[in-house]
């Protein structure tokens, strides 16, 4: 590429894209630790959803264990959506997004780093919380491992796909509802295969196929979503 040749002439230093990504992840993690509300609120929401279902439907063991996979996954999905609203908006508000866009490193790479740190503070924490909810909702112990694997594979896809919507609504005031509308259709395949896997595990059926499909979605998401997110950020920030 023309740009690369130019660079080695003008500036003798190499591009430190990986170091920039690490700095970005480090920054976002420090920010989460300093004001943990952003990470804790979705987790509290997750717990609340799991509490409301038995209250709203029935505390029967049979009914709940039947619904558990769906409830946990829908709760996780909505909790991730809740946390996505501020993913790029806080950067837009204080001007840090301009610095991100002005970086000489490839924007999709930087965006991937941001989504990764978002997943660490949302999807990953929700996954760690999931066993608690599974016990509350009487999920059969056979399905525990399926639930954990699907959450580990599925929540990064939720972060990636939702970040597209988050980037598109970065300039929209109170864009939370719009973000939900844009993201939910993208979440449906993940939800179907993840709950399918857990339900299959509950019936002692093999669920490798589901897991493989979720992995396909994850690979697709990692490859394509950063391009869409980067494109959206450039377009919206004009």
């Amino acid at each position: 590429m023309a740009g690369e040749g130019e660079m080695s002439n003008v500036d003798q230093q190499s591009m430190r894209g990986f170091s920039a990504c690490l700095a970005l992840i480090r920054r976002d993690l420090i920010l989460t630790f300093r004001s943990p509300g952003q990470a804790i609120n979705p987790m509290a929401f997750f717990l609340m959803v799991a509490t409301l279902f038995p209250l709203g439907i029935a505390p029967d063991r049979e009914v709940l264990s039947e619904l558990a996979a769906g409830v946990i996954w829908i709760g996780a999905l909505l909790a991730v959506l809740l946390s996505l609203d501020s993913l790029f908006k806080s950067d837009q508000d204080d001007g840090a997004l301009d610095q991100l866009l002005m970086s000489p490193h490839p924007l999709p790479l930087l965006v991937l780093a941001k989504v990764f740190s978002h997943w660490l503070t949302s999807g990953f924490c929700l996954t760690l919380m999931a066993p608690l909810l599974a016990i509350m909702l009487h999920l059969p112990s056979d399905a525990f491992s399926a639930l954990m694997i699907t959450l580990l594979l599925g929540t990064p896809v939720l972060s990636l796909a939702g970040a597209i919507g988050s980037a598109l609504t970065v300039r929209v005031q109170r864009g939370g509802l719009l973000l939900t509308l844009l993201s939910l259709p993208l979440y449906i395949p993940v939800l179907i295969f993840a709950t399918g896997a857990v339900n299959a595990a509950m019936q002692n059926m093999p669920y490798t196929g589901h897991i493989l499909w979720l992995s396909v979605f994850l690979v697709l998401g990692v490859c394509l979503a950063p391009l869409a997110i980067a494109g959206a950020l450039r377009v919206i920030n004009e």
Partner: protein
Amino acid sequence: MNWTFFHKLGSPKWFYDISGKWLPWLQVSSLVLISVALVWGLAFTPPDYLQGNSYRIIFIHVPASFLAQSVYMMMATAAAVTLIWKIKLADMALKVMAPIGASFCILSLATGAIWGQPTWGTWWVWDARLTSMLILLFLYIGIIALRGAIHTIEAAAKACAILSLVGVVNIPIIKFSVDWWNTLHQGATLTLTEKPSMAPEMLWPLLLAILGFYLFFTMVMVLRLRIEIISRERKTRWVKELVS
């Protein structure tokens, strides 16, 4: 004529002029085709041996479903053109197509529900096709809502284009997962459109109706596009001359 709007726009003026000539033909042909197809289909085809007369709703349901899906594909094409060649006309097309596609989606869902009542005994069945159509409706609503939420025209154009492309990548995935989910949760159901072999006396009016619906869609799109052109180009000389 060095007014630079022209170079950038893929010439909305040219489209406005030429579409004015198409419009009467489109109006007449779509009207004729749809009425012929509906009269033929509703009055002159024999009733279905299994479903009786209720199957006749396919003459509206099937064309509407076809259009709901193909309008999204057209929008994705317009989106790609908007992003690659930065032609404003493509974005205007993208904008005016979204509500039309959403309307066909709603029409398809409504006719599907009406057909479901005598056939399945319920207004709504989580059938794979109906569910996919419902999700498609969400995709349409998302694009319309995003356009409404962004105030800069250029940013809205590109944002909607990106969203349409993201959606079009996802449609096959969504369709596949919903089909898969449906086979898992339900046995084989009677579907509205998939027939082992459709009798030719039913097929011909259906094909006519589909063609008529496509022409109707083109007509509505051209009409809306002309209005959009006028409103977006209102500050150019040719529109001012046109209006005065």
